[in-house]
């Protein structure tokens, strides 16, 4: 052991032998390999830039392909565990956004042009949600938050808990629904709401407090920080960030210059046009889908 390093409590082969505990039968099939993982910062950049692309346009021919891109990247890069469940949550939220925003037309004059206007606003919002769903499903929220500078560890904790809430709520909802079913309590309809909502809310608060407790017990927020095997910003990270940057830049420039029919009018209602170059730029967002799988199955 190097001089001056922290004293180890357990060291040496004798102890290793004494402490050896047999592993239970290894049923591990999904073994995620760190080398294949992508830097969480690259995912953050990708999601932000893809969000900017979606935010910049209400052209249906640019928005719909983004759903396909988000879905494809999700299927290629999902990590094992509950996080991948959150994609479905955000997909449903995205579809709801389209429906609800379209329904807003009833608060103004109902006309084809207005329906199209509200539907496209909803589609844009839905697209942003689906992109966020992909980001949520391919990254570990607490892993993302470990990137935060050490002075921002407390806000980072809040952010991590918020980011991880979708998968955790899904898991807890499933658990609660099954538990209530098994005592004969129906989980359908408005009357079942307390039987579902109360345990889920209680569990959500409890989990958050237990996590805060656990993090504090383990020295979170002491102000010192080192990194264990930090994920390198590798070629894959450069490739996806660069590609997404180009896509977002093309959209912003096209928007500033009024090119590419990014904000088509809906009155009179007409099919918007598509500029191949802009569409090609958008296609660059699919790059992470073709990078080596992270957290996938080791073959």
């Amino acid at each position, binding site marked *: 052991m190097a001089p001056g390093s922290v004293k180890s409590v357990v060291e040496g082969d004798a102890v*290793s032998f004494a402490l050896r505990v047999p*592993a*239970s*039968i290894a049923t591990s099939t999904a073994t995620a390999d760190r080398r294949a993982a992508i830097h969480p910062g690259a995912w953050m950049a990708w999601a932000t830039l893809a969000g900017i692309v979606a935010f910049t346009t209400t052209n249906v021919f640019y928005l719909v392909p983004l759903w396909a891109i988000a879905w494809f990247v999700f299927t290629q890069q999902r990590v094992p565990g509950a996080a991948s469940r959150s994609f479905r949550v955000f997909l449903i939220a995205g579809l709801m956004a389209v429906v609800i925003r379209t329904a807003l037309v009833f608060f103004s004059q109902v006309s084809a042009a207005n329906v199209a206007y509200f539907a496209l606003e909803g589609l844009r919002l839905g697209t942003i949600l689906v992109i966020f769903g992909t980001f949520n499903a391919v990254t570990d929220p607490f892993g993302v938050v470990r990137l935060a500078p050490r002075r921002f560890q407390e806000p980072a904790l809040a952010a991590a808990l918020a980011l991880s809430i979708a998968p955790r709520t899904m898991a807890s909802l499933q658990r609660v629904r099954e538990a209530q079913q098994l005592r004969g309590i129906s989980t359908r309809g408005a009357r079942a709401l307390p039987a579902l909502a109360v345990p889920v809310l209680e569990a959500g608060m409890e989990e958050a407090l237990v996590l805060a407790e*656990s993090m*504090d*017990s383990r020295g979170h927020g002491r102000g010192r920080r080192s990194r*264990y095997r930090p994920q390198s910003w590798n070629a894959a990270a450069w490739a996806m960030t660069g590609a997404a940057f180009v896509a977002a830049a093309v959209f912003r420039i096209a928007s500033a210059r009024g090119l590419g029919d990014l904000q088509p009018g809906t009155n009179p209602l007409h099919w918007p046009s598509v500029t191949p170059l802009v569409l090609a730029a958008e296609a660059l967002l699919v790059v992470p889908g073709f990078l080596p799988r992270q957290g996938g199955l080791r073959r």
Partner: protein
Amino acid sequence: MTIALSFRNLTFTYPEGEHPALADVTVDIPEGAFALALGATGAGKSTFLRSANGLVPHFTGGTFAGQVFVAGRDTLANPPRRLADVVAFVPQDAGASFVLDRVEDEIAYGMENLGVDPAHMRRRVEEMLDLLDIADLRHRSLRQCSGGERQRVAIAAALAAGPRILVLDEPTSQLDPQGAEHVMAALQRLVHDHGMTVLLAEHRLERVVGWVDMAIGFDEGRATVGTPREVLGTLAVGPPVARLGRLVGWDPVPLTVRDGRAAARSHGLARPGRTTPETGDALVVLTGAHVQHEELGQPRPALRDVSFTLHQGEIVAVMGRNGAGKTTLLRTIAGVLAPHRGEVRVLGHTPVPGVDVGLCPQEPESLLFNDSVAGEVRATLRARHLPDADAPWLDRLGISHLAARHPRELSAGQRLLVATAAIAATEAPVILLDEPTRGLDPDSKAHLIRYLRTHAGGGGGAMFATHDVELAAAAATRILMLAGGEIIADGAPADVLGDSHVFAPQMTRVFGPGWLTPEQVAAAMA
């Protein structure tokens, strides 16, 4: 001798508490001690443990008087984070306290916060992976690990940070007997060879009492300190050999199987006669049931070709290693998992959850949503269109005195009894309990066993998954042993448990096959 943990006149009351959870506790735990906190559920063990790293009172609120010093630091002035370099805490539910997703990251997390140098951290993680033999899990997602695997990861993560004091709340509750023994051996080694101070709480005293050299007994918040033997003498709890010792008046009361053998030398007992329990008609019939789970689109078999029949009057303990398929079996019988091949019949038809079968899940909190214990039972009765009479169910589980309390303010063991009462009130003929042992003290255990017997005696059938050999020995009329999703043994407890090195209860270890509970042995000796 240096004092590692010093509790000075500690009195603590939870925000909701009517009485102090800890009342004037003064204890010094010297460096290098292997200390055990014991006592009934709600007697103050967990509170005591949690005050050892400042979680009480920093994360609980409440009323705090007195002082706690951890390696000389006052816990009031130092929140848990500022004690993290000297004391590590492994909570009861290790799974809920994981911060990161990947095993090796989780192990390194505490060291990252302490700013341990990366090269050293790297070596240390490898060491921990080897020490707890979880190297093959290193890249695994913690969400995919079984309960026992998680427990070992939690201990590895706690040890990795290099604390001088290790505090563990029921560290073996999720482990099978073999795993529990290895963890205890590991902890003892840390104490003996490396001068570490270990403080743990455990209900299953048979697993730990032989290892420790100091005990702190809790009774209604008051602490008694001494050797394990002294403290056990003052409390009504103890491992089965100690209970036997008390029943037949042995002095000194034996604490371990070895003590028990020595004391029993003069009482040679022949193998008891076989009793065939009376059973009625078949309630549950599984034929060639094959169940698989999906993992990232890949099927993983969890039950392979299981055929099994549960009859009226039977109480079946489902045992086996972590990950053997116990929970899957129960959920399949309950009708929430459909077998891919084969079939499940309850009373001749496909089971209807909540009607034919009631199941109390591993996290009983999942079903608690009312603001009183009685209300919780009434909710079930209303849903099943049964008369609004909660009292008999509360009485059957021994929780009548808690009727007006808020379920979420009770201890883990009490919550389990409440959840079981809410399940039992469905009047389903088949009642299943998934690992009903977390936080369960002997008293609550006795209530649970009494309920199971009443249920089975009234023409119902019950099954429970457990790692607790003594619970199985005391309560079950039949044992089902699973491994890798297959049934490897099925028979009377005397045969299945008597035949096993790992799963034999203490009475079998002392008196040979066929002897299961202290009460049975004491009756034979009389």
